[in-house]
């Protein structure tokens, strides 16, 4: 049978999953954690603790600052030292709650046993509420609050839950290890999401380079006997794990420009998110840790760690023997979409999935030459955009034309840059232009809203 994949664009980089045999091991709790209040898309959370307060693991330390926002829980037990700005990995100040660790005392009511709880609650709404209280956000990278995604706007209906186990980014293996080691929990999490959306069918999408995970999850589904749940084997292609790409691949439906996945009846959640959902709903454990792949050819050992949220990156790097001489760049995330780390004292956030160390040779950029209009970037773009054109418009600063050419649909996957034979920094130029256009669209919407309100009066 032909393997499924999305219909337009995409590239196929070498998968380099050199850490695939490394089991997820819990990282030692650091002496101090710095928990950011802006770990999700949307409004930052509002701190509810003050310096000097004693906190336990799982205790709420910041409350949502709006509808699209999330609870933040303490990932350690200890004393709050300060609440104030601290530089994140891009060097920009973010409000962080600094907690000095004392022991490892968990909040009562959190079930820390390994026993698998397979009974699904009857009430879907209660599941969503527990997810909200658990502070769960999308762990595939976008960190969009999960409860918002599970509350479809009136008029739209979910028809299928897709669990994203593609992990199409090279080097990353934390989702793969999660599928292998916590497969049962992920499947129960998927069933919970199914229930939350009203008992719709569920597809767990896994790329074909993970045959062990595919067999393992199939076996678990058979064993646990949840209805309407299947594993779909995907052809290897980047960016398959992109939400819109995965919906196209699984359901053969295209999400329109500017529309949400729910408009075509899909809800996509990452494997790690499904696990977090399981832990929050069945075990009362909020999202306080996540698995982080630490990898790179220049490292003597590869690793997958279970890291408490707020752990300084330097502490993780120390656990693999420090940053080797030959490493030129540390990337948070995968090589395609990850961001270079400018500050290794920055702390992890819920969405931190990997630390990738690359050598000078691996990160060197070839000199840029002229565009020869070969169209490779347009072929590679999974959103059907024309990166060469957007690049030129971005340089000219023509926001109107950029909007006409749907620059705001760019998912910043980097396929254009990867495929360009002239090594033109396409995405680099498109990214700020996208930001400017999105800003203009938002400003227009706000102005329209204000005008409508003024007209009402």
């Amino acid at each position, binding site marked *: 049978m032909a393997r499924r994949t999305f219909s337009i664009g995409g590239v196929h980089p070498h998968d380099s999953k050199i850490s695939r045999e490394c089991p997820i091991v819990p990282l030692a709790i650091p002496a101090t954690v710095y928990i950011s209040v802006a770990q999700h898309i949307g409004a930052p959370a509002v701190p509810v603790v003050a310096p000097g307060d004693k906190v336990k693991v799982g205790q709420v330390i910041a409350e949502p600052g709006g509808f699209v926002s999330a609870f933040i829980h303490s990932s350690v037990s200890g004393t709050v030292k300060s609440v104030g700005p601290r530089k994140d990995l891009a*060097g920009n100040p973010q409000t962080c709650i600094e907690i000095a660790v004392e022991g490892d005392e968990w909040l009562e009511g959190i079930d820390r046993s390994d026993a698998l709880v397979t009974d699904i609650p009857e009430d879907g709404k209660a599941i969503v509420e527990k997810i909200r209280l658990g502070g769960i956000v999308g762990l595939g990278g976008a960190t969009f609050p999960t409860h918002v995604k599970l509350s479809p706007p009136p008029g739209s209906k979910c028809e299928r839950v897709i669990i994203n186990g593609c992990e199409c980014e090279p080097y990353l293996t934390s989702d793969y290890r999660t599928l292998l080691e916590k497969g049962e929990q992920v499947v129960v999490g998927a069933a919970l999401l199914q229930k939350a959306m009203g008992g719709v069918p569920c597809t767990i999408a896994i790329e074909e380079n993970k045959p062990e995970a595919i067999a393992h999850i199939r076996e678990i589904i058979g064993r646990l006997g949840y209805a309407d749940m299947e594993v779909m084997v995907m052809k290897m292609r980047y960016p398959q794990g992109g939400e819109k790409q995965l919906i196209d691949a699984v359901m053969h439906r295209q999400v329109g420009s500017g529309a949400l996945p729910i408009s075509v009846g899909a809800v996509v959640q990452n494997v790690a998110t499904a696990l977090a959902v399981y832990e929050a709903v069945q075990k009362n454990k909020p999202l306080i840790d996540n698995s982080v792949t630490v990898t790179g050819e220049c490292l003597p050992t590869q690793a997958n760690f279970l890291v408490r949220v707020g752990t300084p990156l330097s502490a993780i790097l120390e656990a693999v023997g420090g940053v080797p001489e030959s490493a030129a760049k540390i990337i948070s995330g995968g090589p395609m979409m990850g961001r270079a780390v*400018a500050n290794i004292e920055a702390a992890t956030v819920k969405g931190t999935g990997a630390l990738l160390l690359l050598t000078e040779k691996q*990160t060197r950029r070839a000199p840029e030459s002229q565009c020869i209009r070969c169209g490779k970037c347009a072929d590679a773009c999974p959103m059907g955009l024309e990166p060469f054109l957007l690049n030129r418009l971005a340089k000219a600063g023509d926001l109107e034309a950029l909007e006409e050419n749907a620059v705001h649909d760019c998912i910043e996957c980097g396929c254009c840059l990867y495929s360009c034979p002239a090594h033109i920094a396409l995405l680099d130029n498109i990214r*700020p232009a996208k930001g400017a256009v999105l800003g203009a669209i938002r400003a227009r919407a706000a102005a329209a809203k204000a005008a409508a309100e003024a007209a009402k009066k």
Partner: protein
Amino acid sequence: MSDILIWTVVVITVLGLVLALVLYLVAKRFRVEEDPRIDEVEKAMPGANCGGCGFAGCRAFAEKAVGSTSLDGIFCPVGGNETMAKVAAILGMEVVEKAPQVAVVRCNGTCEARPRVNEYDGYSSCKVKAALYSGDTGCSYGCLGCGDCVEACSFGALSMDPATGLPVVDESKCTACGSCVKACPKHIIELRPKGPRGMRLWVECVNKDRGPAVKKACANACIACGICEKTCTHAAIAVKDNVAWIDPALCKLCRECEAVCPTGAIHAANFPKALDKEAVKERIKIRQQKAKEAAAAQAAAAKADAPAQPAPAAKAKEEE
């Protein structure tokens, strides 16, 4: 043979005449009435088409100027008052005079003063760099050094100084069109009045962090200590968001702030003499001493006059 030649000439001529008539009639029928003054105004413009006035080129400026009832808010920064006088004469309006302006760079984070904390090897553009992260120094507000402003300047007035890694404005070429102000993602370039004989003072820093953090990041930064604000006798300086700003409309160019600034963040341009900081500091000290004595004397006098009303003393203090 000659028949063919004659016929060709006749047919082409008749065709030409008919088409000319059609064109004439069409031109007559669909003529667009345009104010002839638009052309005149456009001719009076510098023709740089830089967009510094806020309109898309000189033609658009001319259309706007002709269509308006006054020249309020319409100003060509490149041509300056001279051009605006010409435009006003053509349109029979009143001239709106504006003090000539110049672009100033509000960052003095030289390579020496502001050590690099990481290395940027991405695409060389400030806009791109700013979209990725806070920059390669400890200061997340200062110049990124990729020269977007230099590229934006259509008059060649900006250049990067390789020694400092900062842009330098060539005053003789700068027309204050504002292209660089728009191009800088960190908003460190400001248009300021040129000042008498080009003399002006400004704070060369935009860092909004608190003092200790700023000090760590850059030796030349404004640490918001507020000494300049206290020293200034013209109330021209205000510290807002942890950074001082000198109001050019109030500044009397006494240079006292420059003398007292502990980090040298206040920059003076085009003054004929170098500043004798110690002398100015001495002067300020004496003045403050005198003011203190006067206040004390006044307070004492007030106390002697009417011990129940300490108001004049408080007033004197305020004045000080």
